[in-house]
């Protein structure tokens, strides 16, 4: 199982170089004298957020596809980031603090995170137990969940106190141009810890690509790792959603590209590959919105457009089989 690493070395090298070039192009190009300090700080923050998002979305999408045995669904297509927004709205609605203090923000975030992890893990397990064989059912359920939570969030936002709404707005409508800076530290930490936690199981996850029966026969503690992965996916999705807001089709876009470039089942190749693709895709998108579209189109729209096309292609391909 070791022999595959060599052929991908070159690909990794090229992707890393590309990411670095794009990163420096984004960081340094078109900086005006006067606004150097302001701009460079802003751009560094954006690059950091991009890196955190790419790790979070890339990792969670790959492992989610492994344990659900499909190449079409990702946590955000299943409506997970909408669920996060919904829970956040509820938390602020009921515990509405009206303050903008750092500690409160973090406490709200951690509370939301806990509820989110419990809720989404239960939903996953329920779906996993009842009907996982049917991808169409899962897509449909995900879309319904997504729309339902989106609708509920909007409803609560309408009835919420205006001053609280302004807090919520700041967080909920986080985007790459309006990064949730106060929570950057804690969300990066959560992403880092969850990544290490999951990376310990990459070998087991490799086996799990063969499906449940083979995994059990080969001695993988299947149920335990599925549960662990669902928890980690919830944490990762929460962390990236609070940082830059929901980007529904980012995951499917970068996983599909990575699977094409790295045709392997090995997570120690596929996950870093997906993350690198994610970094390249996000920085390119950022360059396009900032330099060519003068911020008229947000990055998430560009990514969702490309990712949506990719998703539709995958669904159509599925039908042909």
């Amino acid at each position: 199982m070791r022999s595959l690493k060599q052929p991908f070395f070159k690909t990794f090298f090229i992707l890393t170089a590309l990411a670095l070039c794009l990163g420096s192009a984004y960081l340094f190009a078109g900086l005006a004298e006067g606004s150097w300090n302001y701009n460079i700080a802003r751009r560094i923050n954006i690059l950091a957020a991009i890196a955190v998002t790419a790790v979070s979305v890339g990792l969670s999408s790959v492992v989610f596809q492994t344990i659900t045995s499909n190449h079409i669904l990702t946590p955000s297509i299943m409506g997970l980031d909408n669920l996060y927004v919904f829970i956040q709205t509820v938390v602020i609605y009921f515990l509405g603090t009206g303050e903008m203090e750092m500690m409160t923000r973090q406490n709200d975030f951690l509370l939301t995170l806990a509820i989110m992890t419990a809720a989404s893990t239960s939903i996953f397990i329920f779906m996993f137990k009842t009907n996982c064989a049917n991808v169409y059912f899962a897509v449909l359920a995900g879309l319904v969940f997504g729309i339902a939570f989106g609708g509920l969030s909007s409803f609560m936002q309408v009835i919420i106190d205006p001053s609280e709404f302004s807090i919520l707005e700041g967080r909920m409508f986080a985007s790459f141009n309006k990064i949730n800076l106060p929570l950057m530290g804690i969300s990066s930490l959560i992403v880092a810890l969850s990544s290490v936690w999951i990376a310990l199981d990459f070998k087991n996850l490799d086996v799990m690509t063969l499906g449940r029966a083979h995994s059990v026969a080969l001695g993988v503690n299947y149920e335990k790792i599925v549960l662990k992965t669902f928890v980690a996916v919830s944490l990762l999705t929460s962390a990236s959603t609070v940082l830059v807001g929901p980007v529904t089709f980012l995951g499917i876009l970068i996983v599909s590209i990575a699977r094409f470039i790295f045709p392997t089942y090995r997570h120690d190749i596929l996950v870093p590959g997906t993350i690198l693709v994610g970094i390249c895709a996000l920085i390119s998108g950022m360059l396009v919105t900032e330099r060519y579209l003068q911020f008229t189109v947000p990055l998430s729209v560009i990514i969702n457009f490309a990712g949506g096309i990719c998703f539709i292609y995958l669904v159509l391909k599925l039908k042909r089989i």
Partner: protein
Amino acid sequence: MISTENISKKYRSELVLKGVSTILPTGKIIAFIGSNGAGKSTLLNIISRLIPPSEGSVVIDGKKTSLWNTGDLAKTLTILGQSPQSETRITVKDLVSFGRFPHSNGETTPDDERAVAEALNITGIETLKDRYIDELSGGQRQMAYIAMSVAQDTKYILLDEPLNNLDMGRSVKIMKLMQKLVKEKSKTIFVVVHDINFVSFYADYVLALKDGILKYQGETESIMRPEILSDIYDIDITVENYRGKKICIYYK
């Protein structure tokens, strides 16, 4: 030694396995026979902890399956399910290498390399080792999965209809391979086979299931009798002697 204590399996309200208690012999090829839906796969899956029984328990080498560490059990027992499949794009060699996972946890050692090479060799699929499994014929893929189970090198090997998709030549080869594993490596092999003549020629011991009940059990000779087989399969079966073995004729 593997024994089952009164195991039953219920799907919704239907009992598909009814109180199966038996002690299985070791160092033999043990065939499970019975018509479609008799409960053979269910029984094998319960023995190999793939599905839990509704009642009863399985004891493997003196320890209940529920008390075994699943990783350790994978070094003792393996199962290849009926029509195994996966959508993963993976080469034959990598698939067979997965058989070493319980022993090496993914870090391939020279021992593992040797076991994989041997498994590829004795199943005769060395030439296919760099092909992707989704680009193989059904029979070739079946051989690749069997090679994976062989590479796992466990004391007990459970194979659910391994002759699925295989031509006569390959089927004979697989049965001979099983005999060899039993004789040279003292493995115990449990196998579901539908072709009763393969059972007659290659199995040492037979368990016959009907409607979820373990109805007959014994040395192959003692099971290859017209009245037993007719009862199991619900058709008239004539048994003839041919070169010291029994041949069943059921074509009408």
